[in-house]
């Protein structure tokens, strides 16, 4: 479905990704874990076109998406829930969702998408007129995910959706990830919450200093000693 | 001073002193104007080069020009006292507006627009006080012929000498601030005010000092200009138009180098005059039209100014300390830290 081959990226002269290759099959959920500053966010931004890869190729369903600007990547079917949610705080919940459906294909079926998203997140329907910036962290995260879903993506990228949320809410977020999978979406999720993310994904990659250090199925990684010690505190 | 520098200085002085003997009066008039405006632009660049882009220098210029002239006409006060008073008035004005501005961290756009308002205040006050100043019809000083007391000299040579001295003094002050601790402190401040404060720089003092010097010198330039032309019009010595003229000429010439503002004055005034002669008065505006286009192009393609661009071409490798100014050609003015967010 989504494949990266030897992708490198840099901020100015600082290289943040070194020849990263990964592949995600249709309907799969894949995790990316790693310490702070490893380049996880950079990886997501490269895929969604916010940063240009200076090396390597990326394909979605076999079609090249390398070098496309972000707004075209969305039209290809990749939606990105950015780190820290990044809602438009002074827009209402529904306006945020409307922005999520900006691309023509989504705009045409806006009300249909909206019904679907509201059915997935009944809470947002209650809050539709509220300004996004005034909601709780968990609600904002739901809104950010919902906004991404409005474009009817094939692949959903999520960057640390559980960051900064209370434990109970974290559990809800992972529950949501399950639900979204069940809807048939392919998911690539970056998480620091290693233990919990390994419960919802099929496979995961360990990213360290901009390079992939380990890859394997969730079950394998749960048993891996490096991961258990460094990332699960076991 | 090295030998070759000494020779250059002597040659320059020789040329400068030969000019009034050689040049026809019209050109001498042009040269005097260029020198006075060079001084004013250099005074502006004292602040401008550190990213404090003031659109308020029209205010100081207006105060400098009008105060001695009014005192002379109405009280017969000699410009020898009137000019210092005008400088004090401009410095006070700069302090009254500058101090709270710096205290409240009014920077970037906001600083530019506050100072723009200041020049409008002076312009409109001059127009409003039309009973005294003649309003937008302008103001002519009482002429008394050749007089040291009145600082009036129908013979252009005198003003030429004054203008040369003024110009050299301006350059010396520029250099003094550049060489003294002034520059490093101000550069640090323009990069990041908090960081500068944390390494022990007295931010307020440094900013106030350069602002006051810059405003005072601008007023002095305005006063000398007024003494020379003997006719003042609010539009030509105060307000948004002249403020922009100052900013642009200084930037076109280059604010990072000693001679940049002077080159700006030389080019813009000769261009204006040249085009005026070329097109004749039927085409008022032709000169400024071309000038406006050049300004835009200059900001887009040559933001470090003409002198800066020439230096980059002719001096590709300078000592590292100098390289700083030339390696950031993207900015006329370094982005103040708080404007970056």
């Amino acid at each position, binding site marked *: 479905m989504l494949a990266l081959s030897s992708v490198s990226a840099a901020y100015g002269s600082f290289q943040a990704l070194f020849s990263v290759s990964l592949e995600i099959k249709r309907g799969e959920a894949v995790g990316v874990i790693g310490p702070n500053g490893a380049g996880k966010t950079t990886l997501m931004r490269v895929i969604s076109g916010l940063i240009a890869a200076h090396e390597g190729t990326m394909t979605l369903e076999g079609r090249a998406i390398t070098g496309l600007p972000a707004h075209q990547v969305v039209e290809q079917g990749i939606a990105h829930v950015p780190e820290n949610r990044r809602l438009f705080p002074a827009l209402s919940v529904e306006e945020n969702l409307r922005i999520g459906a900006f691309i023509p294909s*989504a705009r045409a079926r806006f009300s249909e998408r909206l019904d679907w998203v509201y059915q997935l997140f009944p809470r947002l329907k209650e809050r539709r007129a509220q300004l996004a910036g005034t909601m709780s962290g968990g609600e904002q995260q739901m809104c950010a995910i919902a906004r991404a879903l409005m474009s009817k993506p094939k692949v959903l990228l999520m960057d640390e959706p559980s960051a900064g949320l209370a434990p109970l809410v974290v559990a809800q977020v992972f529950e949501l990830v399950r639900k979204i999978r069940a809807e048939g979406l392919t998911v690539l999720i970056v998480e620091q919450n290693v233990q919990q993310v390994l419960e919802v994904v099929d496979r995961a990659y360990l990213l360290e200093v901009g390079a992939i250090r380990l890859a394997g199925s969730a079950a394998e990684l749960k048993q891996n000693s490096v991961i258990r010690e460094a990332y699960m505190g076991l | 001073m090295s030998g070759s520098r000494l020779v250059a200085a002597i040659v320059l002085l020789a040329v400068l002193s030969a000019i009034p003997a050689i040049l026809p009066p019209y050109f001498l008039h042009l040269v005097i104007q260029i020198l006075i405006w060079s001084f004013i632009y250099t005074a502006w660049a004292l602040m401008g080069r550190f990213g404090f882009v003031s659109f308020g220098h029209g205010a100081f210029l207006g105060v400098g020009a009008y105060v001695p002239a009014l005192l002379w006409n109405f009280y017969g006060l000699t410009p020898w006292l009137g000019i210092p008073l005008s400088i004090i008035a401009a410095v006070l004005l700069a302090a009254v507006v500058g101090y709270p501005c710096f205290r409240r961290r009014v920077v970037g756009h906001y600083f530019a627009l*506050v100072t723009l308002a200041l020049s409008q205040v002076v312009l409109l006050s001059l127009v*409003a006080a039309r009973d005294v100043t003649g309003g937008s019809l302008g103001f002519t000083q009482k002429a008394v012929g050749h007089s040291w007391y009145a600082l009036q000299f129908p013979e252009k040579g005198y003003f030429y000498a004054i203008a040369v001295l003024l110009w050299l003094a301006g350059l010396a002050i520029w250099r003094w601030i550049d060489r003294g601790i002034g520059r490093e402190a101000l550069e640090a401040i323009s990069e990041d005010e908090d960081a500068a404060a944390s390494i022990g720089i007295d931010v307020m003092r440094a900013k106030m000092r350069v602002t006051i010097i810059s405003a005072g010198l601008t007023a002095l330039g305005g006063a000398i200009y007024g003494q020379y032309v003997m006719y003042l019009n609010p539009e030509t010595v105060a307000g948004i138009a002249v403020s*922009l003229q100052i900013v642009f000429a200084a930037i076109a010439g280059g604010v990072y180098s000693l001679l940049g503002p002077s080159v700006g004055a030389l080019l813009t005034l000769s261009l204006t005059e040249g085009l005026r002669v070329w097109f004749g008065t039927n085409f008022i505006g*032709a000169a400024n039209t071309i000038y406006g286009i050049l300004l*835009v192009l200059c900001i887009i393609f040559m933001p470090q100014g003409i002198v800066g661009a020439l230096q980059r071409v002719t001096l590709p490798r300078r000592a590292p300390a100098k390289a700083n100014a030339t390696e950031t050609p993207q900015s006329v003015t370094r982005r103040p830290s708080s404007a970056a967010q």
Partner: protein
Amino acid sequence: MDIYLLEAIINGILLGGVLALLALGLNLIFGVVDVVWICYADIVMCGMYAIYFLYAQYGVPLPLACAIAISGLAGLGVLVHVLIIAPVLRSPPLNQLLATGGLLFFLQSFATLLFGTDFRNIGVRLPVLEVATMYLSFARLIAFAISLVGAVALYFFLKRTYLGTAIRAIAQDREIVGLMGIDDRRIYLAVSAIGGALAGLAACLLALQYDVHPFIGNTFGPVIFMICVLGGLGNMIGGFIASFVISQIIAIGGYYGSTELSYVFAFTFFIVLMLIRPRGLFAP
């Protein structure tokens, strides 16, 4: 209350309408593109000349002349963005200010070159209304009404349409709008066109009241910046309110002193307020 003072206050409110329209345009552009068009009032001047020539010289019917001026300035707005703003988009803010300042210089002098420094009037004489012994200019009433209609239309455009919502979104978080499928460059063009069109509308309204000359921008420009800064740059509602504050100061100041003095009051008020509230009247 003194009837003349009341008349001054009402005229102030009427003036505030047109100023508000201009402040909206400038704030819209600043909020989205993050560049202050210091030449904004001179773009209005171009529009006034367009109306003058179309209507007074070539006899084009006034509504058509206005429509042409509005769409012409929308085009000019796009041109300004493409030629001057886009190349300096990543430069320090002051360079951007200077680039548009260079354009100001150019527009004023080019207008002088083409049209000379004569004051020209389109020669539409609208009646003066006498209401309870006060004289109110019909042109001002129309200008006020149309300004309000324009502001309301802009409000609904921003509130109700996809493009409008995207414009508000980009002003809040410019980095991630790409993730929503929004091409920021196209939004910039759209906003520049809208800003130009608002300048065009203002030009139509001002041409009814004032003579056009190459430097008319110097009369309005500084006042509009002042309003925008007072309201908080980019804050459209703040700018809208500030327009009426400033126009009242000008009107009442003009009643007690002269026109210039009233502007001196307004600018001084602005400077003092900036020093008390550096981010504008309505900053949190």
